[in-house]
């Protein structure tokens, strides 16, 4: 009896979750993908991992120039 009750509860929860999921508003993939491409293009200039640095000195992790005694 108790097991049955638990099963019922679990099933109810599942259906409830599925109801929420099926009520989600969806957009066509083409639209989402187009926006994703746009986002990438818009932020591309600032992405140092893609373009590298304009000047070496912009890179905080560059090797420091070493002093040499002449």
């Amino acid at each position: 009896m108790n097991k049955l009750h638990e099963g019922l509860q679990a099933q109810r929860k599942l259906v409830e979750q599925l109801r929420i999921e099926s009520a989600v508003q969806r957009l066509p993939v083409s639209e989402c993908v187009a926006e994703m491409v746009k986002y990438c293009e818009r932020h591309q200039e600032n992405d140092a991992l893609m373009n590298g640095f304009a000047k070496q000195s912009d890179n905080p992790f560059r090797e420091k120039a070493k002093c040499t005694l002449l």
Partner: protein
Amino acid sequence: MATEELRVDCDIDSIDALSREAETLKARLEQERSQLNDVDLSEVAQRLDPLPPFIMKARRILKGHQGKVLCVGWSTDKRHVVSSSQDGKLLVWDAFTTNKEHAVTMPTTWVMACAYGPSGTVVACGGLDNKCTVYPLSLDEDPATKKKLVGTHTSYLSCCKFTNSDQQKVSTNSDQQVRVCCRRSVPTQDQQKVSTNSDQQVRVCCRRSVPTQGQQILTGSGDSTCCLWDVESGHMMQCFHGHSCDKSIMVWDMRSGSCVQVFDGHESDVNSVKFYPSGDAIATASDDATCRLFDRRADREVGCYKKESIIFGCNAVDLSLSGRLLFGGYNDYVVHIWDVLKGNRVAMLYSHENRVSCLGISPDGTPLCTGAGTTP
């Protein structure tokens, strides 16, 4: 007696009815998702220029851990890094100079989660001790004397993150057995609800600081739950139940605690999840040797990053600032870098001599930090 039997009958009936409804709902979901799948991401991306040649080299090696590095996190100052290891140590590094600024010995080994607070003055961590502890960082005294217990789970802590005024987080779950990395959760980046829209899922990416910033911590645990804790009081504010051994990715609403979206597709455990910088998609890494991209608005998988030659599982994932590059840390000791749009691999980084267990890109998107074998 008779009524008892009647009730049992009723219950069986309603179980059947519910199962039937679940089946129809599942079928409908499947149908709707496939109907909207009108184009392939890589087809759209064909017209784009190929990426410039990828130049990246290992700039710093942070040596000091005696065991496998399990987690790394960047500070918002783009300079400091926190790392935790199997040896039970938590180290805070200055990435510019490679100096260790703080070291905390935890009362446990396997510190599987660590995170820098948004203020840069606290770090949170936890592991096999089942606890999430916050350490304030100050140069005057030992952080361990000022430690603060925030939350306790009934199993190990697999991840912790400070919230940044986020509305939602994503979490993944794999098997519940004690394994290296089972479960991660990552909050979205500074996302606010659009107030004119009643739909909580429509969000904008405005970066705005709110008074509660950094006051809450999200934790994920081997007990299959994620929880949201208040740092000050240590109260649990929200608990997210629902994960089972299911290879799925769940998106939660942080305020209501309910699951708003589920993504399936991975064939094995999901080890890591990250929000796409726009907040509309989620990148995942899995033991099935693939990384995938799920779009939240299309409600389905839009990209899968795999190669026949890559047969090892992926432990960690992160995206570049523009979202064009995806970095995956794999068990074959290599960091593979993918073009998110075109779906091809653009580069590989070989600097580790063991499995790459974690990686993270700094908040300004410049350096990449990876953790593995013995050195992060």
